[in-house]
């Protein structure tokens, strides 16, 4: 056994360099985490927080599916059932899906992808996490001690006048969490505009950065509107002012307009980051330039902008004017065009690509299939006449779960698997990851496809009881949800396992392009020793592919013994060669 002294910075290892110090082991105190301004550590904090919230939301979903196994459920009271689906919606939308990819992978990757040492405002970034936590604790407290039964939409006048649940606490929590996402949005916009490395022009940006940019625009423009709208609901409850209450001439439909002005674009806050991830993953594992880079980039922007013009399609049956209904319907159809451009370009990228089937790619292909179904059923709902039949049924539930779970969560899983080696410095077991991808795909379809049929047959959403003829499809759906749960628990286990037992990740396990793969895994605190100069497009995979064909480049570099820095003297397990420690210097 030989021991070498710890030097800050990088040490050479046979041609490659691997710095022993990284953002994870540079300091170990609790305060070094809770007071960090490092975007990577904040991303990890967010990752832990949203995983916990996802667990809570998932438990509520399990409760819903248990209740719906029988037409006249006696397991929960109807009040509890209402609180369960409200808790599920509020937690999953505001505390998981909206911050999921931007605050975790976006926070971690955006500065690295553009060659910056951090986001433009690191302390604002930390503040955003604290705001999120404050909102999350408030909402979880309100849900645990009493609950809320308004649904995640807080429709007036039920939420302001009639509901006797913890509406105020939950809305204040959501309001605060809204500012956390505004802070993230501002940070990302400024960072993309002002912090790009030399040579990194707009059209050399990775498509994930484009997606985060488009997402940030939506966050910045939409979130304040829902924040003030929800604030008015609180003022109605607390001070008795009247803004939306029809009892004093207010218009609850105005609340719906203002609510959906944010909450429809919010759907694109959830799906656009996933689309960015899919572009990265597919280009990497097809070893090809993404087909039609500019189209994919601009389709993100088009979705962001058109997304603000379609909110009225949530209100076709509220007595909205026929003409505005037609316009909203038309624009909703239009937004399918940029979405379809993306799906087409991903397929075209895979076509005749040199496909390397890995778990991130399986999740990505799952995303494409499920998002396509989710998107196309959205067109059913965008059609005025069909929507009258399908609105407020399980068809809507199935549609948006295909987009939000099949889209957003599959994209998140793809990204998590893709960048896990970079984030943690460890490889996860690939076989288990593939298995979980398949289980999730099957479980997801089994859960939500029956709900299309239920909805088409007329089962309304949000009801505790239903006619017995719907029972078969509900049992299928509940059975599927348990398969889906298994598919989600497995990654939780092997990700945690990999933190301690996983193989050490090389700098670039996938042979991927992108600045994040040029630095060590996990990255050092300051990301780059010298600011990189970008000279090529984001997806110039030709060189890598040619090198692989020639056998020059091995995408899985030999793992290097991980050098722990917990002690000042570290041991390297290389008893055979006395020179090994010399080589490392």
């Amino acid at each position, binding site marked *: 056994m030989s021991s070498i002294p710890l030097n800050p910075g990088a040490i050479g290892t046979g041609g490659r360099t691997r710095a022993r110090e990284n953002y994870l082991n540079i300091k170990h105190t609790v305060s070094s985490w809770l007071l960090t301004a490092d975007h990577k550590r904040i991303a990890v904090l967010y990752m832990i927080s949203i995983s916990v919230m996802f667990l809570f939301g998932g438990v509520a979903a399990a409760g819903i599916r248990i209740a719906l196994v029988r037409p006249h459920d006696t397991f929960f009271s109807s009040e509890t059932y209402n609180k369960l689906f409200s808790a599920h919606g509020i937690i999953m939308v505001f505390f998981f899906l909206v911050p999921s990819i931007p605050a975790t992978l976006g926070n971690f990757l955006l*500065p690295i992808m553009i060659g*910056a*040492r*951090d*986001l*433009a*405002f*690191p302390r604002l970034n930390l503040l955003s996490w604290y705001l999120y936590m404050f909102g999350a604790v408030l909402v979880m407290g309100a849900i645990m001690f009493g609950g809320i039964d308004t649904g995640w939409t807080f429709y007036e006048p039920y939420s302001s*006048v*009639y509901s*006797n649940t913890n509406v105020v606490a939950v809305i204040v929590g959501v309001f605060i969490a809204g500012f956390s996402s*505004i802070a993230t*949005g*501002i*940070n990302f*916009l*400024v*960072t993309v*505009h*002002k*912090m790009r490395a030399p040579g990194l022009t707009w059209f050399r940006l990775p498509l994930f950065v484009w997606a985060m940019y488009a997402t940030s625009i939506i966050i*910045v*423009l*939409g*979130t*304040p*509107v829902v*924040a*003030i*709208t929800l604030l*008015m609901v609180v*003022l109605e409850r607390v*001070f*008795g*002012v*009247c*803004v939306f209450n029809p*009892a*004093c*001439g*207010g*218009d609850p439909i*105005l609340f719906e307009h*203002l609510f959906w*002005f944010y909450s429809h674009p919010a759907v694109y806050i959830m799906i656009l980051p996933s689309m960015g991830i899919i572009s990265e993953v597919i280009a990497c594992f097809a070893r090809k330039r993404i087909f039609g880079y500019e189209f994919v980039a601009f389709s993100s922007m088009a979705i962001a902008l058109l997304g603000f013009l379609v909110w009225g399609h949530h209100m076709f049956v509220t007595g909205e004017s026929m003409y505005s209904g037609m316009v909203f319907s038309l624009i909703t159809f239009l937004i399918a065009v940029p979405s379809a451009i993306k799906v087409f370009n991903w397929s075209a990228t895979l076509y005749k690509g040199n496909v390397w089937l890995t778990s991130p790619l399986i999740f990505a292909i799952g995303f494409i299939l499920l998002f396509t179904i989710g998107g196309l059923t959205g067109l059913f709902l965008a059609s005025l006449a069909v929507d009258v039949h399908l609105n407020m049924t399980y068809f809507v539930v199935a549609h948006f779960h295909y987009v939000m779970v099949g889209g957003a969560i599959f994209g998140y899983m793809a990204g998590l698997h893709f960048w896990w080696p970079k984030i943690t410095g460890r490889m996860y077991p690939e076989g288990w990851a593939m298995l979980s991808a398949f289980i999730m795909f099957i479980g997801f379809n089994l859960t939500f496809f029956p709900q299309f049929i239920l909805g088409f047959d007329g089962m309304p959403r949000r009801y505790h009881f239903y006619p017995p003829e719907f029972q078969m499809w509900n049992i299928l759906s509940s059975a599927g949800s348990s398969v889906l749960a298994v598919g989600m628990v497995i990654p939780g286990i092997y990700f945690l396992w990999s933190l301690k037992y996983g193989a050490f990740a090389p700098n670039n396990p996938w042979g991927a392009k992108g600045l994040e793969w040029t630095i060590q895994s996990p990255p050092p605190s*300051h990301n780059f020793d010298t*600011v990189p100069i970008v000279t090529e497009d984001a997806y110039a995979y030709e060189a890598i592919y040619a090198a692989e064909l020639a056998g020059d480049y091995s995408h899985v570099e030999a793992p290097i013994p991980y050098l722990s820095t917990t002690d000042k003297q570290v041991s390297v397990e290389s008893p055979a060669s006395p020179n090994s420690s010399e080589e490392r210097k």
Partner: protein
Amino acid sequence: MSLELQHPAVAPQRLSHQFEQIDQQNDSYIVGMWTFLVTEIMFFGALFVALTVYRSVYPDAFEQAHNALNVWLGLTNTFILLTSSFTAAMAVRSKMLGQRALTLVFLGFTILCAFGFLGVKYVEYSAEFREHHFPGPNFQWSQTVSSAPAQGDLAANSQVALGAPKVGVNEFPASYQPQQLELHKRELFFSLYFVMTGLHAFHVIIGICTLSTLWLLIYFKHPVVDDYMPVELAGLYWHFVDIVWIFLYPLVYLIGKQ
């Protein structure tokens, strides 16, 4: 904004680790502040939408209700805020030129104006509370309603039932009497009035806190304010507060029925 106005010696020290150049850092602050102001505009925007919608639905009631506001106090406040915006701009300029004493004077005057604004607001709010114009169970209306009920407006040609007992919050209203509805429409106007001016006043208070902190930092020569950027950013925020009022004042106090 020219950086040559800065003392060159202080520039390298205040560069945060994530930036390469001082230009990049200053640009980021400016872009960040403008983006934040965009979110603020959207924040107020929803309220302006609500005001516009309800004004178009209840034109007569809103005209009646807005007559109860004190235009002159509002005008005074407009002058106070415009003056404070001017001094805020002058404070930024003198900070850029390195005139510390002048910066303190201009910033101090801006803060005084902000307090003056809140003082006038206090007088206005007090009067409105005395007249029971604050929305809620105690809302009352004592002026004669319009003698010519317009289309869609169910105004009666008489005195509205003054302070008629309002329905409880948790029960459906017993009846939609026309007079009761008239009362509620005015209550709706005052709800929006109090929410919008209240939110604006809240921003004024945040402005006072920000500007006072800056004033103290400059007074005690804290290194954070060696640079003009904090004053510039606070100035931008203050102009935003001013501009919101520029829209709020005519829309709430001045515009009558069309």
